[in-house]
């Protein structure tokens, strides 16, 4: 297991060295979502990190339109890759370009989507010089274990850091502030409280690449670190870009090395953000889907005849026959299933067509009038009984 973190300033190098960080992620302004480093800083940080004996990784994780892509490639070509040991990418365009135009090992970010083994395996077999894959924080412990058992490439997960919720290319804070000119070097921050939900203090950042919104709580799996260590995960990433590295990295390193309850409580008390484990325990984010629509009005039965269009109490029902194979017959028994799930069976004692003529049967497409049935409402489904 090794620790990975983001290098934004030289002064962090000493702290990284003291706290067992082995691999640093360097984020050029023009290639990285949260990137702040100029070309000069990118080279300087990478050179200094290498001198300290750290592995250096160039991060290119923006999503790009063709115009953005051409700009990114123009910039990328100016970077002296000899300072870097690997390149980390997400956009398939960047993956493709890096494969064809460099000889560097590739670290593949699979954090967006990629929640099944088959897809992850396909990425792994498709990318040349693949050195590592970075998993989504939405994989539960169970999914992690299963996936890790079926792949052979080293894996990295985030164990401590902010949760990115939203990534838009539009300059939403500048638009909101009615700023007229968009400075490519801008870095605008705000906090947002939902006035319609119950969530407050979403961190919002805007820069050259667009607008990013973060959950008010940060992901922290430090209290699960011992079981994570058993899982054969190669790298644990610590993202303290929104916090003080100097203050918190030593505490985090201590917890990773030797987790104990007292240090853990102290850490939680001191850390400025609330901490969550996200979906680590379980991912049941589809469990509410059945409640999103009325299951009672779904057409599911082979005896389905049609639907009630009007229910005039004590007078008549108007039905539309929708079945292509079944007919509604005078004297037959039919079952109504109401929108609340109630089932009512009734005999057809009166059957008229839309010209009000008495008929014996009706087939697909017909609009018919039948005798009224108590408790049957509009939209009830009609079945042969």
């Amino acid at each position, binding site marked *: 297991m090794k620790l990975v973190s983001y290098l934004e300033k030289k002064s962090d190098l000493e702290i990284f060295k003291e706290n067992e960080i082995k691999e640093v992620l360097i984020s050029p302004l023009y290639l990285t979502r949260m990137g702040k480093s100029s070309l000069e800083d990118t080279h300087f940080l990478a050179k200094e990190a290498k001198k300290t004996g750290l592995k250096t990784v160039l991060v290119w994780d923006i999503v790009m339109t063709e115009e953005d892509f051409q700009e990114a490639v123009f910039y990328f070509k100016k970077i002296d890759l000899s300072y870097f040991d690997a390149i980390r990418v997400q956009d398939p365009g960047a993956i493709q370009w890096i494969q064809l135009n460099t000889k560097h090992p590739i670290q593949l970010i699979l954090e967006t989507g990629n929640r099944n083994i088959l897809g992850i395996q396909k990425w792994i077999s498709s990318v040349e010089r693949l050195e590592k894959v970075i998993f989504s924080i939405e994989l539960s412990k169970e999914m992690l274990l299963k996936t890790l058992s079926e792949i052979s490439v080293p894996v990295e997960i985030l164990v401590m850091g902010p949760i990115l919720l*939203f990534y838009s290319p*539009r300059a939403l804070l500048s638009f909101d502030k009615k700023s007229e000119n968009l400075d490519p070097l801008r870095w605008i921050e705000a906090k947002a409280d939902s006035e319609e939900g119950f969530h407050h203090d979403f961190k919002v950042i805007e820069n050259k690449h667009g607008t990013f919104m973060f959950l008010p709580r940060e992901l922290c799996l430090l209290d699960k670190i011992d079981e994570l260590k058993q899982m054969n995960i190669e790298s644990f990433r610590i993202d303290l870009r929104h916090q003080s590295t100097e203050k918190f990295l030593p505490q985090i390193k201590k917890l990773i090395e030797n987790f104990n309850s007292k240090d853990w409580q102290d850490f939680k008390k001191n850390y400025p953000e609330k901490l969550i484990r996200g979906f680590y325990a379980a991912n049941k984010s589809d469990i509410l889907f059945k409640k999103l629509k009325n299951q009672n009005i779904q057409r599911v039965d082979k005896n389905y005849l049609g639907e009630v269009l009007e229910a005039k109490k004590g007078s008549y029902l108007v039905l539309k026959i929708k079945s292509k194979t079944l007919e509604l017959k005078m004297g037959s028994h039919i079952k109504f299933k109401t929108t609340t799930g109630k089932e009512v069976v009734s005999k057809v004692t009166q059957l008229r067509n839309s010209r009000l003529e008495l008929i014996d049967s009706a087939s697909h497409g017909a609009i018919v009038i039948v005798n009224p049935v108590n408790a049957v409402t509009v939209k009830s489904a009609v079945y042969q009984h």
Partner: protein
Amino acid sequence: MSKPFLPELLVPAGSLEKLKVAVQYGANAVYLAGQQFGLRSAAENFTEDELREGIPYAHQHGVQTYVVLNGFLHDKDLETLPSFLKLLEELNVNAVIVSDLGVIETVKQFSTLPIHLSTQASCLNVESGKLWKTMGVKRLILGREASIAEAGKIKKETGLEVELFIHGSMCMAYSGNCVISNFTYGRDSNRGGCNHSCRFNYQVKYKDQSHSSFLFSSKDLMGLPLIEEFSKYEIDSIKVEGRMKSPLYAGTIAKVYSDALKEFEKKGTLSAEKIKHWVKELQKIPSRDFTEASLLHKADAQSVYTNHPTKNKKMKFGLAGEIIDVIENDSILVEVKSPIHGTDTLEILPFEGEPLAFKNFQVKDMMGNSIDYAKTSTVARLPYFPQAKVGQFIRKGASE
């Protein structure tokens, strides 16, 4: 004059009813979902029986059918996918829309269905398109951030078909890159549970000021005036968003864009006057105002919808009902969707051509008795018009 390139008009079919509406009002292709695997869990979607009816119906009318399987599926979701693919293949579905590589692999393993890469994969550049091509994709449904010119370049340099959204609601985030619902409401937005938090009002707190804002909410896309551009860059398919929207929405959008495409095919250009007329028609259905978003240039401040999402939702031209039967020389039967009075000005929306307006008529109930007005969720008899056809909508003039 050589014949202009005509894109396919692809319209959403959130239910069997909407599929029939889209087909009748001029769609060249429809996209729809079964009960699983898509991104609209709250939409009615299609049961197996409805797929068995809807897909042949579309094909009989010369309309292509694409089935969405574009959720970021988990391992357990993939277990039931093969049997669904068999059904789709049996029904001769024309393509499936997929965003996840695991789903692509499953489709390839269990069927020969053509694969369209969903916008959810945010494919936006040539190199990305080339990589997806190696994965077996036949068509790229590009992210809404791509311009028409970029889409044309991607088509040319990848050799793949390209599809671009032309109308409808827009995510503010790159598609697939928003998980607000996942972490705030426990609903996976990338498997159909999006709760539209971006439409909420937010108190935005800067260092020096604080105010209330809908900063994350986008206006709706509307690219009708750019049809010539879509043609110029030979965009294969222009897509309308909105499987959750009403049948009137599906019908109106299909009709307006279909009319515009037919006019463009005939004349090779669209006059400003005609465009104005069609845009006016589009404005008759609820929207969050319109923007061209990134179709020509990167979306700017004008692309943000700064009003409450419900504010502009008042029906400018409400749906009065749908014609369910035409009794020759006698009457038309209307399934009433909002009250109809004899003094209302109504419009029959034909499948092609101009609406037919009428007013001062007698309203009768199903049994032929005269009534003051027809209530919602009843069936009314209105006067007979030879032009009326089953499936056409009847609109009611501005209620505001």
